[in-house]
C-alpha cells in the first residue's frame, strides 16, 4: 500500500501515481467522470429480477454454500425425505463439471437443474435466471440452490435468494468463519454438518465455531445436523418451514396490495 495517501496502487504504476506528489497527473485535455456505481450492479439487477420471480410465486429460495465435501447434497437428500409430500421442492445444482448431484436429486423424484460452470468458481444471478426458465415456479414452494463448493467466490454474488445457508462440516476446522469472513458474515443460518462425527472428531468445538461467527457480528443461528440421523434435522426443518411461511405470507400481502391498486387507479 502507498504510504503517502493510503491507496493500494501497484509498484509498477507508482511512478505515474506520484509524479507530482498528487493523486495523479491529469493530461491537460482529459475528462474525469465521477460515478460511484457498484461494480456488480449488473449481477444485482438480475438478482433483483430473480427475487421478484420468487416473490411473485411465493417461492422460498435458499442459497446453500460451503466448501467442497461438506455434505450439501447429502443434506438435501435427507431434507427432501422429510419435506416430501408437505412441500413442493426443486433444486438448482451448481458444479464445475458433471450432472452427478442433479441425478442424485432426480432419483428422489424431485426436479433438478444442473448448471455446469466449467472453470467458473461460483454461480451468478444470470446462471440462476437461465436455470429458472427450466422450472415452473408456479408449482414450487421451496427452491434450493446448491452453489459451487467454494467458501470464497459464491459469497460475492447475490442470486436473488431469500436466505443464505452456510454449511461447516465438523470434519473441517472450527475456525473457518474466521478464515472466510465474507462467506460466514453473509450466512443467515449456519449448519454444522456431519454432526454424527462430532464424538470422533475430538478437536472440533461447536462453541468455538459459534464464537468465530459472532466475531463477524453475525447473529445467525448455528444448528448441528447429520444427514445420517433424521432426528437431528428437526430444527433445520423448522427453520425452513418458518421461512417458507414467511415467503407465502409476503406473496399474499403483495397480491392484496395489487388488488387494492387495481381498484384505486391513480387519478
Amino acid at each position, binding site marked *: *500500500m502507498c504510504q503517502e495517501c*493510503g*491507496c*493500494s*496502487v*501497484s509498484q509498477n*504504476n507508482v511512478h*505515474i*501515481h506520484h509524479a507530482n506528489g498528487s493523486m*495523479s497527473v*491529469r*493530461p*491537460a*485535455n*482529459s*475528462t*474525469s*467522470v*465521477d*460515478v*460511484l*456505481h*457498484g*461494480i*456488480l*450492479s*449488473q*449481477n444485482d439487477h438480475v438478482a433483483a429480477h430473480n427475487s421478484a420471480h420468487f416473490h411473485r410465486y411465493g417461492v422460498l429460495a435458499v442459497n446453500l454454500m460451503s466448501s467442497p465435501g461438506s455434505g450439501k447434497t447429502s443434506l438435501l437428500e435427507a431434507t427432501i425425505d422429510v419435506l416430501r409430500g408437505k412441500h413442493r421442492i426443486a433444486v438448482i445444482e451448481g458444479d464445475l463439471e458433471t450432472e452427478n448431484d442433479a441425478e442424485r436429486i432426480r432419483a428422489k423424484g424431485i426436479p433438478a437443474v444442473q448448471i455446469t460452470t466449467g472453470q*467458473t*468458481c*461460483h454461480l*451468478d444471478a444470470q446462471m440462476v435466471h437461465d436455470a429458472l426458465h427450466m422450472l415452473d415456479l408456479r408449482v414450487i414452494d421451496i427452491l434450493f440452490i446448491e452453489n459451487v463448493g467454494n467458501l*470464497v*467466490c459464491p*459469497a*460475492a*454474488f447475490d442470486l436473488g435468494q431469500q436466505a443464505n445457508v452456510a454449511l461447516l462440516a465438523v470434519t473441517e476446522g472450527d475456525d473457518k*468463519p*474466521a*478464515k472466510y*469472513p*465474507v*462467506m460466514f*458474515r453473509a450466512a443467515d443460518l449456519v449448519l454444522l454438518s456431519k454432526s454424527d462425527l462430532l464424538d470422533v472428531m475430538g478437536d472440533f468445538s461447536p462453541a468455538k465455531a459459534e464464537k*468465530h461467527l*459472532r*466475531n*463477524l*457480528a453475525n447473529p445467525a443461528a448455528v444448528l448441528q445436523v447429520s444427514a445420517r440421523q433424521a432426528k437431528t434435522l428437526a430444527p433445520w426443518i423448522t427453520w425452513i418451514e418458518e421461512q417458507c411461511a414467511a415467503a407465502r405470507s409476503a406473496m399474499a400481502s403483495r397480491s392484496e396490495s395489487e388488488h387494492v391498486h387495481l381498484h384505486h387507479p391513480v387519478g
Partner: protein
Amino acid sequence: MHELAICQSLLSKIAHIAAPYSGREVTEIVVAIGPLSGVEPQLLERAFSVARCGTIASQAMLIFEAVPVVVRCRGCKSETAVASNALLCGTCGTWQVELASGDEMVLKRVELADVAETAAE
C-alpha cells in the same frame, strides 16, 4: 478466482460510461474495494491486465482506494476500525455492531484523455 468475472463487469460498465466521449480513451479507473467485499485487489489487478486488452481501457491504470473496515456499535454508538474477522466494537467489545464500511465494491471515477494526446506521450 472470481476476479476475472468482476473485471468483465467493471469493463462493461466502463464501456458504457466512455461511450459518449468518442475519440477519447480511458486512462485511469479508480475503484474502492473493501476487505469484506470478497475481492482480492492484487488478483483483480492481475485479471484486469488481461481483461482490458482490446477494450477502450486497454491502456488504463486501475487504482485502488483504500477502504478501512469500520464498525458502528449499536450500544455505545462508537465507530472503530477493526480487522475483517473481528467485527467487535473497539470501545466496549460487543459483537452487536453494524458495518459502517469495508464491504464496498465500487467504481468511483473514470479518467478519459484524447487518443492522439495519449499516443504522443
